């Protein structure tokens, strides 16, 4: 493009700004542009994008602002363009429309009479022009009448919905108002998140800003006293509730519960319940050493901490804790059976020579009906929660005797096989188990020994194959939540609501009110007769107007004068 072309291009643009084809084009372009951001996920981590697109496309897309496209310069420019176009179009049309609303021609030239789709002509005897005119005015009370005498005839013009064009003005101005409101919200408002652990206090919010994270300090702090979840009987969450205290300049000024759909309002800032998570619960893991010693030890740690075993170098990074884990235990396709599997902790286990894995360890054994199937954990070899696989451990670790029995059994079994007593494998097993039972319980055998025995024998295989030096099982916990809050301030919101109201109101006028015009020419014929000629049109919804016109005609025909001789014009 050369320098010379540029000004004329701008001139053309300005001239075209308020025209219909451009409006249509703009609306379509805006629709297409908006759809991009719904397909390309917005505001994700930059590394995710880099991975997804490769370096070249990543830089191209990033330069175009595609990762936050609704705030990119070109999208804002498109919206600006729309505002300019709507503005230009109002500028061009409003004066004309106001003029049209005021100027109402009382007479109709012949040329237009001919073109009118809705018209009727008839005669009334035994009355006068003035009488008929007065009758018409009382018969059709809702109409806005003008009257004049021209060319030997009396003319009546009636209007209904004369202010229909205000619909257009309201709708298009409302677009401007809404966009201005949106601009105010973006420039003078904020919207960010904070996480507050129970009993903790926070003052700063963070939010996505371009490809980074922005921070803002609030003029007050928020303390979370308690976070509470309520569940439906099928395990779906029913309510998230935070009890918050606002602390302004060291003073507790307000304490209130908030729930989803029920925010708190303080000093122009709204505080919403947005999310929740673990706020660093205390976790005690019991480590069952698998070296045959039968010993256990405790690991005391907390969520988001990493605990390291000084002797083996194995580390446990605690990632999450949940007190309830409701799962559907019904067979697929059958009726659902919801069961709470109890508290579970998630951690990543790492160590020299070990493949690092993600483990979800449950505190309680898995009990189906009356059947205790022993403790279990979920293990993901990839570290992704999608790949969790249930690993039954055999033993019920919530019963310390069972762990003792297991170790006694393994010990006795080792003795027997090393002695080479000539027993068959089965016999050796049975004898070893009998000895182990005596070792642990003496002669006071517990009632559930048979089930315990099955679990112990089963777990020999699974436990001996574990690659880890110990088995971490959740022993107890002290739970703390954090509540995820969203804090917003929005000075444009009321402008947007006003614009929205105008928009809907304007649309109703535009679509449901039509400007209907009727003309009536009354001419005296003979001594006592008058000839009436009625025509009408509407600027929209001709289907309904034709119906209305017929009703008007019928009303006038029946109501004007007494002696009527109709000369209906065939249309």
């Amino acid at each position, binding site marked *: 493009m050369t320098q010379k072309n540029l000004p004329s291009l701008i001139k053309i643009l300005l001239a075209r700004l308020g025209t219909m084809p451009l409006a249509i084009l703009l609306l379509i372009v805006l*629709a297409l542009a908006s759809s991009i*951001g719904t397909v390309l*996920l917005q505001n994700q981590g930059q590394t995710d994008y880099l991975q997804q697109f490769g370096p070249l496309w990543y830089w191209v897309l990033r330069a175009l602002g595609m990762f936050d496209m609704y705030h990119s310069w070109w999208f804002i420019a498109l919206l600006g363009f729309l505002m300019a176009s709507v503005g230009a179009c109002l500028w061009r049309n409003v004066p004309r429309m106001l003029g049209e609303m005021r100027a109402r021609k009382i007479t109709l030239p012949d040329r237009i009479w001919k073109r009118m789709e809705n018209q009727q002509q008839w005669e009334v005897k035994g009355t006068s022009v003035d009488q008929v005119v007065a009758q018409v005015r009382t018969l059709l009370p809702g109409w806005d009448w003008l009257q004049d005498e021209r060319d030997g005839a009396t003319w009546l013009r009636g209007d209904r919905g004369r202010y229909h064009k205000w619909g257009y003005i309201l709708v298009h101005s409302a677009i401007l108002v809404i966009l201005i409101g949106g601009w105010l919200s973006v420039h003078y408002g904020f919207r960010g998140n904070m996480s507050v652990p129970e009993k903790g206090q926070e003052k700063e919010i963070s939010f996505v800003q371009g490809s980074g994270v922005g921070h803002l300090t609030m003029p007050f702090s928020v303390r979370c006293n308690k976070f509470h979840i309520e569940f*439906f009987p099928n395990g*779906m969450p029913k*309510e998230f509730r935070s009890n918050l205290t606002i602390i302004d300049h060291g003073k507790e000024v307000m304490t209130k519960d908030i729930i989803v759909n029920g925010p708190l309002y303080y000093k122009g800032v709204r505080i919403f319940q947005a999310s929740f998570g673990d706020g660093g619960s205390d976790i005690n893991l019991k480590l069952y050493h698998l070296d045959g010693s039968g010993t256990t030890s405790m690991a005391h740690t907390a969520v988001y901490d990493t605990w390291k075993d000084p002797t083996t170098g194995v580390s446990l990074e605690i990632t999450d804790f949940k007190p309830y884990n409701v799962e559907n235990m019904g067979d697929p396709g059958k009726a659902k059976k919801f069961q709470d599997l109890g508290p579970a902790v998630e951690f990543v286990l790492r160590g020299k020579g070990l493949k690092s894995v993600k483990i979800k360890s449950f505190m309680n054994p898995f009990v189906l009906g009356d059947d205790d199937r022993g403790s279990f954990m979920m293990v993901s070899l990839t570290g992704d929660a999608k790949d969790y696989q249930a690993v039954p451990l055999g033993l019920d670790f919530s019963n310390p005797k069972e762990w003792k029995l297991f170790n006694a059994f393994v010990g006795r079994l080792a003795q027997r096989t090393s002695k080479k007593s000539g027993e068959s494998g089965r016999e050796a097993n049975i004898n070893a188990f009998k000895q182990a039972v005596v070792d642990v319980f003496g002669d006071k055998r517990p009632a559930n020994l048979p089930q315990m025995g099955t679990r112990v024998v089963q777990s020999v295989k699974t436990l001996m194959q574990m690659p880890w030096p110990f088995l971490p099982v959740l022993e107890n916990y002290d739970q703390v939540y954090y509540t995820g809050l969203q804090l917003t301030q929005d000075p444009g919101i009321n402008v947007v609501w006003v614009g929205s109201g105008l928009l809907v109101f304007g649309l109703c006028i535009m679509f449901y009110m039509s400007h209907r015009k009727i003309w009536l020419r009354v001419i005296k014929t003979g001594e006592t007769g008058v000839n009436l000629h009625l025509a009408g049109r509407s600027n929209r919804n001709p289907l309904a107007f*034709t119906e209305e016109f017929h009703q008007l005609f019928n009303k006038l025909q029946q109501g004007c004068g007494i002696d009527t001789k109709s000369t209906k014009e065939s249309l």
Partner: protein
Amino acid sequence: MTSITMDQPQQSRLFAAIHQGKIAVLRCWAYLGFIGGASALAMFGSNYSESGYIFQLLSMSGVVWGGAGMLVGIGVGAVLTRSDDTDSPNWQSKLVPWLDGVVVLLLLMGLWTLFEPAASQISYTDQSNLVSVRTIMAMKVLFLFSAACYIAQLFAPESFIGKVASWCAWGGVYAGGSSLLLRWYESYQFLGGEIGHAPVSNLYEVFILLCCVISIIYLSFERRYRTTGLGAFVMFLVAAAVLFIIWLGSYGEADIKPLVPALQSYWMKIHVPMNFVGYGSFAVACAAGMAWLVRARLERSGKNAKLLAIFPSLDQLDQLSYRAVSIGFPAFTLATILGAVWASQAWGGYWSWDPKETWALIVLLVYGAWLHVRVSHGWSGRVLAWWSVTAFVVTLFCFVGVNMYLSGLHSYGHLG
């Protein structure tokens, strides 16, 4: 735009007698008065609670508040209509059939509850013995049969099949509407009434609503303008929706489930149905566009005069799709705004460029462009017809596709 006289439909004399005249006007005012009284009870009567309100309304205080409102309404109506002649159509006579319809729906729903199994036999985990399962089945059959009749009528344009078709469609509307109300009631029967909610919370429920809304809009057109040929196209879309409902049901989506916290808001009851008025009328506009294209093709081929006779003319079809959009566009705009109001309460911002929101905006832009194409000259009916069909595809994506393919804040209606 040229004006067209459509033949006045042959409304039955009974219908005219019920919906015109002084009685109809006063009845209309009585309904309005009752609605006013019931709202006053909710606002000023003591201790309003969402789940208890209906029982309050059915008790003595409901009789007092609703009855008082009704009397006031009748009084106002009597005064206002004293001088006017009430025989010619007016807004009351247009409104009253709708309110009558609602009353019939409520009565039907009450009737169905009589057949509900005993409380001990209702279980959350197996909902197959609820009565609504059967009434929804009736709706599906009626709609499918109606679609078949409308399509058969194209080839055998005797008025009898057409009558059967519309009666079945009406039957489907009443079956579907009353089953939704019944489902609302049933949702309070489980788990101690904890999970009760309006039946607009998942795809299964809103599709039933959609079928009913499309049919109501079409049937009201059919009653006002004789549009019989269009029925085949509209009910074809409804039939497709019914098949989708059956498919959803086979995935266990038909169960009544609790609401996640974000949906526990009275805004849901307003926002979602309003959206479906929009979706429904856009579907009718699309059907009119399809009919336009088919008719244009038949005209060009010069054959099938018999088939053509039952189609509305091209101009009529064009205007019908405009009528439909002029219901849908304001409704959908309002629904989007209501959604923004709700979002500002639940998520802390009225607009988050969440996929569902964005697609709602796209739908509005597409129909907005369509409206501007109509007012600007030099575009033919063919472009408009194609546009209304394509715009409906966009609409469909907004309301099913977004839930299936895109992720976002609208947890509502996820599949699988």
